[in-house]
């Protein structure tokens, strides 16, 4: 018990043991611990008004379009589509190769999307999106309005690119398919993400709080209802790459942090690591002890593109993400961080949904404790399978 010097209590326990806390801490300030229970790209769903040009085609549709463009006859294209990956029989090697080189018939289109012409991605033209006013401007043409608060000047160009792809659309409370599928896999395997909020004097209003975002050594557990188990203990990974200290305040039960960089190691299945600039958090401290809100900031857009494209046809076909189309769209919509030479923007405004449940966050200084600083180095088998590189190499690329 003496091995850990500090742990952060989850909220529920604070309430249950009010006396214990009062005895141990003379000041009224408290620190609460959480483990992230949901994380996924924020894509506002407002119905048809989001995408007046319609939704992007399903992968079978844009694959057929590409086959015809490549000169296949209608019957040949139809026949090839029958052999679509996942269909019975599945002679998919040939098919994948055609699609994977659809730009110039020789280059890997996922690694080199510019080998293909821009097929055009239908993008969001609606008024609303979640996120932050990252550049402080309220009247720029790319601004959205927050549908809940009415705040103007929201920047979320990432949503503009993704928002008319079917697998990124879902009416709440459902989560978009792709984000849900990714999180469902990662949740039980990826070292957990931890949040600590220090300096809470009043859970409704506290002027000066410190938010620490870090990565744990252990993954989350589930409870009997299948949800992320609350009040579990997590040791913090001392790896400084995933250690972020933010400052902010709580007003009317909503925690908002000041702009800061946030970097956290994730998992190659999602993205090897996130690294946001000018990032902010807006989290509601809910009565049941959980957190619910948004993380927003500028992110290197190519890293986001590659987080989809690295799986090649797998996500392209299963999530109907036309990779070259996405590439050109992100490049077009990038809105920050211009390259000094080319002038092209390197970063794009993003927003992610964050939910977290109470947890004990344990800081340890014992050098003998198992340190997991590079969890991405070993991949579970099923994720290797989903990895494009290996697959394409096996086809002789």
């Amino acid at each position, binding site marked *: *018990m003496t091995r850990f010097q500090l742990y952060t209590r989850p909220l529920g326990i604070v309430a249950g*043991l009010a006396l214990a806390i009062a005895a141990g801490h003379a000041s009224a300030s408290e620190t609460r611990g959480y483990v992230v229970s949901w994380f996924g790209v924020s894509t506002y769903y407002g119905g048809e008004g989001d995408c007046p040009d319609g939704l992007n085609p399903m992968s079978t549709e844009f694959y057929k379009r590409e086959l015809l463009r490549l000169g296949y006859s209608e019957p040949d294209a139809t026949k090839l589509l029958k052999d679509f990956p996942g269909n019975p029989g599945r002679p998919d090697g040939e098919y994948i190769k055609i699609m994977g080189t659809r730009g110039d018939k020789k280059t890997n289109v996922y690694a080199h999307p510019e080998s293909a012409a821009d097929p055009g991605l239908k993008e969001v033209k609606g008024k609303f999106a979640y996120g932050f006013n990252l550049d402080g401007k309220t009247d720029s043409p790319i601004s959205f309005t927050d549908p809940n608060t009415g705040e103007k000047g929201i920047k979320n160009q990432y949503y503009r690119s993704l928002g008319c792809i079917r697998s990124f659309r879902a009416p709440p409370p459902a989560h978009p398919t792709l984000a849900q599928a990714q999180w469902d896999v990662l949740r039980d395997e990826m070292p957990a993400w931890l949040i600590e909020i220090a300096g809470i004097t009043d859970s409704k209003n506290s002027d000066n709080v410190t938010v620490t975002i870090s990565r744990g050594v252990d993954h989350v*557990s589930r*409870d*009997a209802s299948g949800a992320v188990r609350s009040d579990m*203990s997590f040791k913090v990974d001392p790896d400084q790459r995933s250690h972020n200290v933010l400052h902010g305040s709580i007003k009317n039960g909503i925690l908002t942090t000041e702009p800061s960089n946030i970097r956290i190691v994730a998992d190659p299945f999602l993205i090897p690591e996130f690294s946001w600039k000018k990032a902010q958090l807006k989290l509601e401290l809910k009565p049941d002890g959980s957190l619910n809100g948004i993380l927003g900031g500028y992110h290197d857009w190519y890293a986001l593109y590659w987080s989809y494209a690295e799986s090649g046809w797998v996500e392209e076909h299963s999530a109907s993400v036309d990779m070259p189309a996405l590439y050109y769209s992100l490049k077009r919509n990038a809105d920050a961080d211009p390259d000094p030479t080319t002038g092209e923007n390197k970063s794009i405004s993003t927003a992610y949904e964050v939910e977290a449940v109470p947890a004990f966050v344990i800081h340890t200084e014992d050098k003998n404790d*198992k340190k997991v600083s590079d969890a991405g180095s070993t991949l579970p088998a099923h994720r290797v399978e989903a990895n494009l590189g290996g697959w394409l190499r096996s086809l002789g690329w």
Partner: protein
Amino acid sequence: MVMSNSPMRLFGALGFAAAIALTGCGQKDDAPVTKGGPVSLRRLTEPEYRQVIADVFGTTIKVPGRFEPDIRDNGLIAVGTSRESVAGTGLEQYDLTARGIAAQVVDEVHRTTLVPCTPAKATDRDDACAAKFIERTGRLLFRRPLSQGEMATQVKGAGESAAKLGNFYSGLELSVSAMLVSPQFLFRQEAAQPDPDNAGQRRLDGYSKASRLSFFLWDTTPDSELLDAAAKGDLDTDSGIAKQVDRMTHSPRLAAGVRAFFSDMLGFDGFTALAKDPQIYPKYSSQVAADAQEQTLRTLTDLLVTNNGDYRDAFTTRKTYLTRLLGSVYGVPVMTSTGWEPHEYAVDDPRAGILMQVSFLSLHSHPGRSSPTIRGKALREVFLCQKVPDPPGNVNFALVQDTKNPAFHTARARLGAHINQPTCAGCHKIMDPVGLAMENFDSAGGFRSTENDSLIVTAGEIDGMKFDDASGFTKVIHDHPQAPVCLVNRIYSFGTGRAASKDEAEWLNYQVKQFVASGYKVPELMRRIASSKAFYRISTPGTDANNATLSMAGTNTQTEALK
């Protein structure tokens, strides 16, 4: 009924406990003489079966299949085993299990270590080698050497099977499965012989004593040394028994006996059928239930065996062991990612002792709500050996369990309304105050300070002893004079496989005195019982007339005797 005046009786006992402290106890064996009990025939319980297989064939042998449910009698499965038989469906299961075990015993992985010889030809019978194996294995399974006739039958059966199936090991496999479904294995059948020291009386034979000792202290079949002692006649003498008891109580395996006793007494078999509503208690899972039982057993063995502590401290100790899963239920951080670590509740933590652990709290609750009545009944029956009468028929339970009734926010309020009915008041007075003291814990063992936004009050009174809160309650149970009386009774029953008889009340009182004088040390109590004459004494036919069972409620008889 019997309970209605128990507070008065218990006060008597309280006075008695004080008297013990004053007078102390002599060390020499001046125990009252008992008439003994019948020669017993006890079916192996499922945990015993599993432990025996692990000890005889090794822990890598899986025990497949399920078992006939055990019967609980006089508070213990150990007592129920003296009533159990085997039904057709049950034997079918034993047969499946036996065949599953036997196949593993002779498989290529295990035969090298478990079969002590190599057959002349693997494809044919080899009676000499088979005999070696059967002699060694049979002695451990039957808890005595096989008779000549049994040896001949087994060797012949193995040989014929081997010849028929063209495989030596298939013969052995059949032999193992035959022994595992035989009554000599499934039942611990004791044997009596004329007592040379007391003409006309009988005594247990050495092997029967060895089994009693071994299952009592170690929860398993006698080891080779104990069987040797039986063979040499050592167990026919007090000094021979003392020597073995000494060896066994100083072995780390004593913890297994203590664990077996408490998981029986605490009714942990009830967890098999226990379910909680995952929507109401999402934190409760089958893994939490397994950890919860282990937590209580670790708490007890750590206190009672490792630290040779005071049994009564089991109700108040702040020391326990936790896993992370349990930590999430108890709301405390747990450093160790997987596995157990010691934990000490904070001084002002409402939890203390085994009654406030998830195992007791969840086992004695409904799937969707706590039950002060069930918890109160369980505490009385399990720890105080008091029998709470069944509810009468045609009771109107209106209001009691409607947890959403706007007029009655807490269980205390609902029960208060309920026991205004005179037919219910008598029993609920016995159960409810005890259970209400634990109302800060929900059906899954989680802490709560309010129910439906009303503060939960845990103050109360049990058998004339008042308490302000849960912590005070645990202290009252700690000091309850019936708790050690009950424990002694239960441990004795656990060892003998029967409820104590009325004739043994005085002897039990004597043991209680010794237990109190020893500082409530459980290993010492077990040593004393295992070394006593009463533990092995068998009644002479014809003198059983007064051997009526000392009923559970009849612990009052004991209490009276204690005055």
